[in-house]
């Protein structure tokens, strides 16, 4: 039957438009049914390789998003001062709106310098997905501001934005796992069955053929509920768990010594005096050749007859040194399963069982997402996790952890327009995030922007253009963000809906939904021009058009292809030797074979010298020990550190606020803070909630469905904020943990549900966080192990 569905027979005059959904990064192929210019329904495209005719709730509900009466309809300007209860929004034309934005951008640049203007973007799937960000970045670069960015620090920083370039050399590459080949799936903080809907069937197929699914998540997420083994650590302690897994793998000799010797920097000798690598004989690194009992230079490769020692202690030319692996083993050696059990609440036996299963099942795959990017120890947590596939040799093989690059479109970001000096003047670099600066990741955590606005340090931010972003709810410490936005000299915001932060805006712009915008992309097996399925409602514009029209007004028409979006698409498409018009003439898209995955790319030989290509890390090998981190002033190894705040790092806060607040996972039908106004989706989950363990609720006297207040402290112990939420009693969380989903601010008129606001008494969990507990490497904010108390009103 499923095959029959690929040749739908329609008897009426419905036009079928082939497209893809950009509500998340998965890009599912869709067939949109349009009649008389109206969208009738959206279905999965059976010919799309990614989703094979399936489709998730977000795209299925497209019609109610497009034809929602509550959308922003016209550009509007404020006519009353900020702080006035009524902003006096007055309808203006797009010309007036864009002329105003361009004029203010020019003024601010002339008066304070271009870095004083922040260009802010939302998450993937905002008003028109992530596709147009490259052009927005281009605008920022031409304008001269290195301050462009969003929420990567609390989302995917150590996975793919940028990834772990110092350890894995995977800058801006996405993990890509062949689920048809893998025999073990190890997922951490990643509700993959809901957040990557097209992978759900592949993962179940893998389980059906015998692959084991292991999920690490403090919550019984829908994915954890399907796991063969679910490990539920205390929130923010995953790092201790991973170190204990390494402990077992090393202690029981389950690591891949050949792989470590050949392809990682595990055998490199580390000087005991400096913690830096020993160099010598004109080579940047040295190993100890255990075959000949002598040091041997590594460039970073060594001749085939050399057998590099992984363990031991050596003296070379009077310098005491040890192989990096020895140092890592020493660290892991201190982290026994019993030690980890105390910290993580995960039984030592379970840790042993998982370590053995993981290390002895080949190929094993490993992946992680934003569950681990919400803790003050996030960076090293990701490092310790990423070393598991390396240590066990489950790296860049079919069914193991592998990485893929984006399709080879020409890049439009125009980084060359930005003076290189500005990278170091970016807020991130100026605030001391040396690794981020080193990686040229100048995209900033938004709390730095709030700091810069409110304190003028490291320099003031005076103006902002924000597109497709719920600034008032999408970042920790919403209160502070709102206060910062109030202080801006100029704020323009574009979105589909009127969001809480727009209270502080001078101008608001109505943006098109994904279904009303255009772009070009590769959606296997088709290269496609994604035409607007229907014309934008009211006076909404696609974000891409806003960027192009603004660029023209700022004098960048030439660099923006004379303001012609089609020409820009043609530039992107050059590597495919096809034009946007040619693609548009083929409504199905042009078939283009998906790139064949290439594995063991590190082992391929350079043509010029026959040496392995290696990986794009500082040493050219996968890095167990990061000398670069050491020289930038950070720990070279993933030492255990408690999450901050946390019951052990800030016990004083837990005396008054004894429960642990965690937030993160979201179900499939929501995308971050979006879509709550869509009644079909909202009927499935009408109200925001707090998960409270049944036994804890009993002690608190809280009934299921009862409204409760959740309060949290600032760093100094005074109250940061409170949320009002319906209690959902569950055993999905530990008795000491409560869980609040993020992204709740919007009402749903159709169902009689009002907006919640975003500050005290609202449902916005991000109002409950002091944003000063940060990861010194990534800038990630401590959000999973936050002190709180729950009371009945």
């Amino acid at each position, binding site marked *: 039957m499923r095959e029959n569905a690929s040749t739908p027979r329609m008897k009426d005059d419905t036009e079928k438009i082939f497209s893809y959904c950009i509500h998340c990064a998965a890009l599912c192929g869709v067939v949109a049914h349009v009649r008389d210019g109206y969208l009738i329904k959206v*279905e*999965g495209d059976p010919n799309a390789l990614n989703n094979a005719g399936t489709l998730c709730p977000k795209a299925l509900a497209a019609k109610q998003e497009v034809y929602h009466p509550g959308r922003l309809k016209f550009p509007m300007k404020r006519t009353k001062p900020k702080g006035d209860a009524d902003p006096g929004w007055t309808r203006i034309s797009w010309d007036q709106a864009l002329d105003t934005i361009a004029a203010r951008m020019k003024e601010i640049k002339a008066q304070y310098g271009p870095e004083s203007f922040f260009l802010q973007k939302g998450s993937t799937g905002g008003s028109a997905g992530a596709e147009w960000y490259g052009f927005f970045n281009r605008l920022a670069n031409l304008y001269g501001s290195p301050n462009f960015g969003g929420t990567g620090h609390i989302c995917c920083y150590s996975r793919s934005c940028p990834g772990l370039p110092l350890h894995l050399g995977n800058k801006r590459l996405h993990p890509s796992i062949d689920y048809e080949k893998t025999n073990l799936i190890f997922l951490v903080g990643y509700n993959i069955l809901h957040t990557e809907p*097209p992978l759900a069937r592949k993962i179940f197929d893998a389980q059906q053929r015998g692959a084991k699914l292991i999920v690490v998540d403090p919550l019984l997420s*829908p994915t954890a*509920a399907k796991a063969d083994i679910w490990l539920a650590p205390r929130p923010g302690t995953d790092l201790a768990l991973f170190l204990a897994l390494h402990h077992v793998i090393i202690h029981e000799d389950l690591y891949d010594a050949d792989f470590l010797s050949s392809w990682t920097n595990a055998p490199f000798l580390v000087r005991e005096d400096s913690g830096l690598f020993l160099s010598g004989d004109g080579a940047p690194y040295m190993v100890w050749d255990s075959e000949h009992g002598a040091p041997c230079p590594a460039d970073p490769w060594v001749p085939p007859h050399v057998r590099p020692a992984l363990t031991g202690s050596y003296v070379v030319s009077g310098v005491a040194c040890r192989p990096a692996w020895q140092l890592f083993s020493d660290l892991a050696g201190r982290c026994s399963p019993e030690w980890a059990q105390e910290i993580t609440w995960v039984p030592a036996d379970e840790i042993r069982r998982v370590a053995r299963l993981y290390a002895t099942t080949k190929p094993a795959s490993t992946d992680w997402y934003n569950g681990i990017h919400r803790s003050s120890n996030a960076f090293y947590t990701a490092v310790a996790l990423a070393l598991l596939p390396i240590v066990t040799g489950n790296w860049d093989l079919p069914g193991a952890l592998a990485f893929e690059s984006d399709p080879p479109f020409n890049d439009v970001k125009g980084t060359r327009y930005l003076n290189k000096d500005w990278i170091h003047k970016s807020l991130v670099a100026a605030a001391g995030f040396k690794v981020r600066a080193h990686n040229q990741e100048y995209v900033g955590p938004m709390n730095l922007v709030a700091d810069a606005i409110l304190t003028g340090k490291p320099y003031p931010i005076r103006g902002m253009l924000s597109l497709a972003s719920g600034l008032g709810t999408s970042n920790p410490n919403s209160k502070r963000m709102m206060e910062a936005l109030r202080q801006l000299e100029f704020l323009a915001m574009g979105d589909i809906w009127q969001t809480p932060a727009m209270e502080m805006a001078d101008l608001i712009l109505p943006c098109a939904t994904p279904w009303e915008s255009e772009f070009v992309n590769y959606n296997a097996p088709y290269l496609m021009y994604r035409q607007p399925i229907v014309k934008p409602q009211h006076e909404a514009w696609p974000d891409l058009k806003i960027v192009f029209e603004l660029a023209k007004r700022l004098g960048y028409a030439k660099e923006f292809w004379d303001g012609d979006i089609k020409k820009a698409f043609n530039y992107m498409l050059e590597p495919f030797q096809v034009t946007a018009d040619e693609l548009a003439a083929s409504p199905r898209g042009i078939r283009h074979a998906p790139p064949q995955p290439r594995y063991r790319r590190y082992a391929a030989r350079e043509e010029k010298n026959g040496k392995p290509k290696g990986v794009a890390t500082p040493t050219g090998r996968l890095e167990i020990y990061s000398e670069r981190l050491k020289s930038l002033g950070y720990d070279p190894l993933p030492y255990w550190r408690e999450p901050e705040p946390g019951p052990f790092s800030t016990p004083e806060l837990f005396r008054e606020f004894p429960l642990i607040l965690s937030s993160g996972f979201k179900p499939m039908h929501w995308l971050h803070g979006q879509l709550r106004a869509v009644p079909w989706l909202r009927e*499935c989950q009408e109200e925001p909630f707090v998960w409270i363990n049944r036994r804890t609720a009993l002690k608190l006297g809280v009934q299921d469905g009862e409204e409760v207040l959740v309060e949290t402290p600032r760093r100094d112990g005074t109250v940061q904020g409170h949320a009002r939420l319906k209690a959902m009693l569950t*055993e999905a969380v530990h008795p000491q943990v409560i869980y609040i989903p993020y992204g709740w601010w919007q009402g749903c008129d159709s169902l009689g549900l009002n907006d919640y606001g975003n500050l005290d008494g609202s449902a916005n969990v991000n109002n409950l966080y002091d944003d000063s507990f940060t990861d010194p490497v990534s800038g990630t904010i401590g959000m999973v192990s936050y002190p709180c108390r729950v009371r009945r009103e």
Partner: protein
Amino acid sequence: MARYGLAIDLSRCTGCYACIIACKSENSTLPGVFWIRIDEKEQGEHPKVARSYTPLLCMQCGEVPCAQACPSEAISKGEGGIIFIDEERCICDAVKPCIAACPFEVLMANKGRLSYFPDYLTPHEKQAYEAHRHAVVEKCTLCHHRITAGLLPACVQTCPSQAMIFGDLDEPQGDLAQLVSRGEAKPLREDLKADPSVFYLQRLAAP
């Protein structure tokens, strides 16, 4: 004669609601009316806790308990063993005996609001919503209009987990009939002996 049915692999259901929204989109059911829903259950104590998701829809029972309860003969078995409700004959006022007679609670009467955005409908939405008469009982028809056009029911087509297997129980070699005859797929409530066309299975061992 065909007898259309489903087998739902509960080990694949993640409770994502895609089936519910696909049904809404396909059938334009009224606000608050669902022809398919998901029953979510939690068992055990943290961390030894499990959660199950069970999609529930009209089981197209051969014994048709709802029809037996209907005083006006509005409910009948039609093509492919699908149970249909004739809206002209669905005339009970407040109390709907068919709803009470269904052991799976999957029949619902249209009530309340007649569309989601009453003042803001496309012409096609208006037409689609007007097809649902107030106070009439409705339920899943296995997307009869789709299967007669050679398509899968909307919920089956869209399920990201591919948890639902559609087929003809009268085709002995088909996947569905095979799963049923091997005893792998079973009625949700065997004790009721309702002769349903919808079956459930658990292909993967429960964790």
